[in-house]
């Protein structure tokens, strides 16, 4: 018995349905189920850092995540620019899973003067992890971190039923001529495809800045405008499909007193408000894309009186099939 996966999607011509034995086509469909496990790769994290230019402070970014229930391996793609004179950068990736655990530390990555370098690696994220922490150490060299992309990249198709509900196909039963086709084989196509689709949440919006010296906080805003909300970010998002709900996560802090506030707003639509008090908060936002699939989102922070609030991360995740 072999659990394999085609290296590319096996396109089954529509003309083949009804003209061949079910036992000939079903193994190809199930092979594509295994392909989905390997190559359904929406981004778990896609961030361009709101960051200080020419930073020498070893910036640290914390990003709330909702990883796969299967404890998958992911590819991480970091991009950093040297601000002049060359740099050697060490990337450290931690996950928060009842405490911080380091899941990857790079060797020193040499970046030529003025160049932009991409460093790629894989690491497994625990199914119960709730945050990633990215530290970019430069030993005092001035750098400008650009962004981070994280996407599922399993090393192999696993045996047995996975926590996500995915069940792999092996060719031990269907691979031999005239062996039986069971109803379970047919149902497994749908069960496993939907399991993979739903298990791999897709980041739909991101605003992340350094947890040390943030580029901006409410202290940069007009002090006379206390209690008002100021827009701190604006972007369009494209969603494949109709109305949906997304889970919004925010992390931030306030210098003293009551929590700061951040809002994520669909222009002319729903909004959520989350506290900035040093812990991750979450809420559900309903999105209604326009006819072309676009949603315009704005982020706002409230200016507290006599205190300073700082947003560290604002992200949202979409899971296909989550409808309002």
């Amino acid at each position, binding site marked *: 018995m072999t659990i394999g996966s085609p290296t590319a999607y096996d396109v089954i011509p529509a003309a083949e349905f009804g003209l061949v034995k079910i036992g000939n086509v079903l193994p190809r469909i199930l092979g594509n189920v295994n392909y989905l496990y390997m190559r359904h*790769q929406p981004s778990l994290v896609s961030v361009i850092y709101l960051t200080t230019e020419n930073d020498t402070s070893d910036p640290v970014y914390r990003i709330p995540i909702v990883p796969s229930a299967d404890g998958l391996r992911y590819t991480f793609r970091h991009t950093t620019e040297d601000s002049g004179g060359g740099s050697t950068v060490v990337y450290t990736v931690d996950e928060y899973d009842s405490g911080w655990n380091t899941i990857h530390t790079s060797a020193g990555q040499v970046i030529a003067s003025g160049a932009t370098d991409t460093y790629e690696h894989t690491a497994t994220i625990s199914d119960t992890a709730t945050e990633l922490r990215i530290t970019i150490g430069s030993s005092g060299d001035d750098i400008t971190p650009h962004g981070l992309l994280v*996407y599922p990249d399993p090393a192999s198709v696993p045996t047995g039923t996975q926590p996500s509900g995915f069940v792999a196909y092996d060719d031990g039963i269907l691979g031999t001529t005239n062996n039986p086709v069971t109803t379970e084989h*047919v149902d497994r196509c749908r069960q496993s*495809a939907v399991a993979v689709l739903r298990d791999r949440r897709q980041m739909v919006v991101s605003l992340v800045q350094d947890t040390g010296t943030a580029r901006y906080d409410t202290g*940069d805003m007009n002090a006379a405008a206390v209690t008002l909300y100021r827009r701190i*970010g604006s972007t*369009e998002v494209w969603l494949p499909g109709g109305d949906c709900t997304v889970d919004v996560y925010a992390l931030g802090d306030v210098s003293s007193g009551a929590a700061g506030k951040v809002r994520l707003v669909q222009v002319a639509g729903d909004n959520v408000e989350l506290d900035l008090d040093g812990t991750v908060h979450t809420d559900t936002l309903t999105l209604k894309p326009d006819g072309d699939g676009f949603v315009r989102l704005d982020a706002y922070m409230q200016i507290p009186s006599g205190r300073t609030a700082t947003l560290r991360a604002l992200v949202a995740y979409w899971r296909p099939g989550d409808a309002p």
Partner: protein
Amino acid sequence: MRKPSKRDWSDLDTTSEIIGELAAPPASVAYLGQAEAIVHSVATAPYACCGHMYDAQGERTHAAILPLGVNHWRVAFTRCRIHGSAGSQQSPTLITSASSGATAADVVTVPAQTVGTYGYMDVTGTTDAVVKHQRSGAQVDDTPAATKDRQLELTETLRPTVEAYTIEQSAGHCVFIAGRTQDLETL
């Protein structure tokens, strides 16, 4: 001919089975079609295109992972500046990618609006900032003789592609799919 799926997941039934507990179901090509259709839909469905909020008058390098069968993409981006401040015309937003930008003529150049001097967000509390949402061009021209505002090309494959790109003069953006192959069987 097999086209990529355009399925809308908002009506997805997450629990039902194709055959389930039906006793002694008849052999049916319909079951096979249902089994293949859902796998095809997931394999070829577009991913959500993440919106990024940041602050970069200069260049930002990033990458997007695009699903199989994509052959063109565009960018919806945000520019921000202080309304009415002194200064000359804003620099255009330039976009290059691994598959589009090998020569200077390949650079996608999106014209800028003509007020103000800054490309920053109004996070500093400026009361008169202007936020402008734009999209890169819809015209398809994969071999431009000169820089222009157009779609970015991508080689179609039967697996997802990580496409690196840079974008200048923006305070937010979202890479979105503009074109997909018409027939997956040709790839």
